């Protein structure tokens, strides 16, 4: 138990900020995201046998965190397969990008958030979403293309 607890502590210290930033886009505020992150690590600590070292520890905690975040919104838990809805906490800082992201299909939008807010590798995004790394690459590629098209159109118009 000791080793995994140390790994969890290390992960928390390194990545607490990234977890909060990403999960704020699910819960709607940094304050609630901070609470969700702590609860996710609490559950990870209590259920250390649930981590079978088949993937990265971080991906496992992300899955827990999403379940907690979705639960905190009043939804039932264990719904990562349904693709959690994500949105910027403060769209006004870059309305063009926020609008373009909002137009993405939910799966692409989530992949984009995991890439840029959570700073996850393609492999870890795949582990969180339950898809292959190749699917992540394809999803992100499509998302980038759609964002580029939307942004170039909108920003040329404005």
């Amino acid at each position, binding site marked *: 138990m000791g080793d995994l607890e*140390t790994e969890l*502590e*290390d992960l*928390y*210290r390194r990545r*607490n*900020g*990234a977890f*909060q*930033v990403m999960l*704020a886009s699910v819960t709607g505020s*940094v*304050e609630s*995201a*901070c609470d969700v*992150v*702590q*609860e996710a*690590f*609490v559950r990870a*600590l*209590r259920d250390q046998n649930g981590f079978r070292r088949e993937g990265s520890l971080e991906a496992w905690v992300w899955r827990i965190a999403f379940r907690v975040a979705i639960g905190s919104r009043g939804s039932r838990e264990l719904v990562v397969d349904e693709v959690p809805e994500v949105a*910027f*906490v*403060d*769209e006004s*800082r*870059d309305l063009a*990008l*926020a609008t373009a992201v909002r137009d993405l299909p939910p799966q692409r939008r989530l992949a984009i958030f995991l*890439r*840029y*807010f959570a700073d996850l590798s393609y492999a870890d995004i795949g582990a969180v979403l339950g898809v292959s790394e190749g699917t992540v690459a394809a999803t*992100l*590629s499509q998302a*980038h*293309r759609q*964002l*580029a098209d939307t942004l170039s159109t909108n920003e040329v118009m404005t």
Partner: protein
Amino acid sequence: MSMYEDSGLSARFAALAPEPLSGAWNDVLDRAGTARTGRQRLERFRFVPSRRRRLVVVLTAVALATAVTAAGWAIVREVVLHKGFVGLPPVGATPSTPESGELVIQYWVDTDGPKGTGEARAWVYADGRLITLRRGFLEQRLTPDGVELLRSEIVSAGLEHYPPAPGPWIHNVIQVRIGDRLVGYHANFPERLLERLADPASWLPASAWEDRQIRAYVAPRYSVKYHAQPKTLERSRILSLLPAAAEDMLRAKDAVPEFGQLGSPAFPPLLPITTYSSNLTTEEARALAQALDDAGLKRDRRSGELVYSFEIPGTSVDPPRPAKGPVRNEVFIFFWPYLPNGESICTECG
């Protein structure tokens, strides 16, 4: 990764990211119900009257000494001293000799190439000692010719011709004795040299080694450093917060103040911080650590060195930017081993 992702989106997403809040790992442990935090135990500890505290410390030390037999220590020495250790050496470990030595080479380089091990950090002395830092300090012995071979390998690489490395002089630094002075380089070093510095045993001939067996480096002295952060405190105030036995030990020692700053240059203003440093023998350091253990202070389990910390009850201070507060003010106590050249080493810095 597409060019579009590289060039534009990262910065725009960064601008849209909300600022995270600070969150202490102790809070997670508290919620998990596994808490045995230094803070809680310290608060309880500090209500015990002073004389009784001293008695508790003494009785605990006696009980420990009785419980651990000489045979037990022998096994500990055998196992630990061939692997290295973090923190203080086991009782009875013989300090490395001689106590002081002339530094010939020192390096701390990144070795991320195909054969790299991540980073290599070592000190080589004229008396032949090669001390490397892995998890704890390790010692091997070179012959005089071995020291010269290693020195020549560095000097002949022509490091003065390599472009300077970016960033501060922490990683990717080599110092080598040329004549009567140590010359320092901070550059993008050639791959061949990095591979050789990462693993001298892979290329130095057998004749270069006086004793190739790896043993733990046992320091004769420790530099004990303590400070409060994020709000700096005077030495007397910090000492008054320590367990009585630890306070007595450190108060009896001279302390040198070192002035630094806390925070990131990207987020001014930096916070001033004064660290106090005292020179202790290994036995004194062990007694101090025992007093802190007995008081229930938390050891930092992540660290590759011995560090204690505790939050000061009732405090509420602002952390350095961009973190947001308020947070409790904390006291940290570090134990840094001295190397033969008289330098105490922070194994977690950089």
